[in-house]
């Protein structure tokens, strides 16, 4: 089959690889129909997450059809249309039983290795580095899904593909961000990052009772989407002093809840940006925590800071004095997708959450590298490019608001390594 592989920093290749096989009894094989890009992939592509190896297949946010099941798979059958959660949980350990799926003790084959870095092992994640298990990702025609009964959910017939695909990762992450923010009726919520995760955090925040949600980003088309599709007020941090505007618009209190949906590659303005970029380059910090600093500073006294933007290691100049003296609560985590999928189907059906607008660029597999260029550069209105591995040609029916630049341009085609 064909798959999109990480070949080095900012170097992706479509390659011919073996088809996946059932390796354990609880595995299933899924024929991938849609596989989205995600901000987490950018951290791998831009070289900020350790333990990648040339040849790793990328992708973790996907839907497809079951084509084979292992002998111990009980809930799924060949032909089922499923969404698969991006993180892998065994379903039996203490953490899975407590619905803290991304903390699974057993799903990471490199758990012992990971323990040496993080002290404790965490769950495996599809296509997300060897520290997180080294599992082959979903930007491929087929994928092997371990512990399939727990990770793969049948998609109800009335939920279309272009909504279901984001239930794998983007929607549950945004939902969990809002849930961890501990929103009370009447609260003002600030969300940093108007990418797919931020958009879903905004919609979930309204659902959980927020009175107002304010989105912060610098990319105009993403702010526009936050305003029109997710109904947020917006701040462009390049044009305004974020802390001032947030105070100004909340009667001097500051937002009750602050959500970091940006993570380790946060951009910032002025000297702060050069400081973090240099330290990151010299490996003196692995993460650029500009958003985390700002969220801690902006949050009202006694408020909550919820972190789903991914950090890899360590960062500095975190204003801990503010954290402590303002009595803040801080929570974070990789999302526990398995816990939310049934609820999210329900919310999507009721129209309370609608992720379909995020699918801006349906893309054939061979144009994967190009799609990541658009996504990484935040160009061409790209919110999320979705790879359609079963589609060889341009036209993909059914998806809304297609801005299909990728296909128009691919007359020449991108290098496909055989």
């Amino acid at each position, binding site marked *: *089959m064909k*798959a999109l*592989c990480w*070949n*080095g920093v900012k170097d992706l*290749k479509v*390659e011919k*690889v*073996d*088809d*996946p*096989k059932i*390796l*354990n*009894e*609880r595995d299933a094989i899924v024929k991938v129909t849609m596989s989205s890009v995600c901000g987490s992939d950018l951290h791998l592509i831009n*070289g900020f997450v*350790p*333990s*990648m*190896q*040339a*040849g*790793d*297949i990328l992708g973790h946010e996907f839907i497809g059809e079951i084509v084979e099941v292992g002998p*111990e798979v009980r809930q799924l059958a060949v032909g089922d249309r499923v969404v698969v959660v991006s993180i*892998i949980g*065994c*379903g*039996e*350990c*203490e953490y899975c*039983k407590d619905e803290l799926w991304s903390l699974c*003790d*057993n*799903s*990471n*084959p490199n*758990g*012992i*290795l990971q323990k*040496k*870095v993080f002290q404790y092992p965490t769950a*495996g994640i599809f296509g997300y580095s*060897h*520290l997180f*298990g*080294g*599992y*082959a990702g979903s930007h*491929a025609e087929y994928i*092997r899904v*371990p*512990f399939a009964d727990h990770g793969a959910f049948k998609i109800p017939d009335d939920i279309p593909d272009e909504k279901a695909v984001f239930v794998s990762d983007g929607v549950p992450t945004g939902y969990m961000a809002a849930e961890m923010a501990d929103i009370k009726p009447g609260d003002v919520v600030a969300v940093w990052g108007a990418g797919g995760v931020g958009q879903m955090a905004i919609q979930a925040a309204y659902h959980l009772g927020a009175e107002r949600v304010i989105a912060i980003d610098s990319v105009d088309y993403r702010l526009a989407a936050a305003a029109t599709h997710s109904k947020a007020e917006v701040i462009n941090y390049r044009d305004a002093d974020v802390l001032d505007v947030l105070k100004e618009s909340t009667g001097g209190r500051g937002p009750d809840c602050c959500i970091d949906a940006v993570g380790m590659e946060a951009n910032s303005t002025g000297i702060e940006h050069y400081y973090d970029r240099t330290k990151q380059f010299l*490996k*003196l910090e692995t993460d650029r925590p500009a958003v985390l600093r700002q969220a801690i500073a902006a949050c009202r006294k006694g408020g909550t800071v919820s972190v789903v933007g991914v950090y890899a*290691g*360590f960062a500095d100049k975190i204003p801990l004095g503010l954290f402590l003296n303002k009595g803040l609560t801080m929570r974070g985590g990789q999302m526990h997708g398995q816990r939310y999928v049934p609820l999210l189907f329900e919310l999507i059906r009721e129209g309370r959450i609608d992720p379909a607008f995020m699918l801006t660029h349906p893309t054939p597999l061979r144009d994967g590298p190009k799609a990541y260029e658009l996504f990484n550069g935040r160009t061409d209105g790209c919110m999320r490019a979705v790879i359609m591995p079963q589609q060889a040609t341009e036209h993909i029916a059914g998806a809304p608001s297609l801005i299909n630049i990728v296909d128009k341009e691919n007359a020449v085609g991108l290098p496909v*390594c055989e």
Partner: protein
Amino acid sequence: MSRKIVKNVGTTERIVSIALGAYLGYNGLKNLRYQSVPALLASGYLFVRGGLGYCPISRWLGKKDIHNPAINVKAVMTVNKPREEVYRYWRALANLPSFMPHLHEVAEIDERRSHWIAEMPGMGGKIEWDAEIVKDEPNELIGWQSINGSPVKNAGKVQFYDAPRRGTEMRVIFSYHPPAGGLGTAAAKLLNPLFKGVIENEIYNFKRVMEAGEIPTTDGQPAGKRTGKLKLI
């Protein structure tokens, strides 16, 4: 499973170096005083060692000379199953190969005695010995030892405690020692220090088998061309 880990131990060391480098760097920065300069230097050194996979000091020492052929692995873990069940599975020594793939077979001869066959890929042969249970306190403790004259000395001890709400806490000790008077080639391979990482992983497999019913793996999954090494930073 075990094959992969053997290949990757260099990687483990590199990741550990990076983590230690980060930790020492953090500690060094924490008390930025005259004494912390060595720690900061060590941190830089560990970063280099981890990041480049190159260790100037090992090279200088001639890495082979610093090997100690005995292997002692200690592990603690919590298994989300009742103590009786956990004890029973380990006590049936024939189950050991189901989570310790380097053991080809463990056959129970009678209540106390057992015959062990170990095999590692690249070991150049099987190695066999007899062992006996030297301590057995049901649901609490199992201890065993290879009998005198075995080609390799193997011993182990497992203790079981209740973990409130969470099943069973276990303490495991597993060791291999060279016998007096020289080593056969197969035994020598078994005592390769890289093997320690394998044992550590295999002990953790016990938890995976008890809870999840399987050992997670990626061996045999597809990948593109492995044109480069695992990139750590």
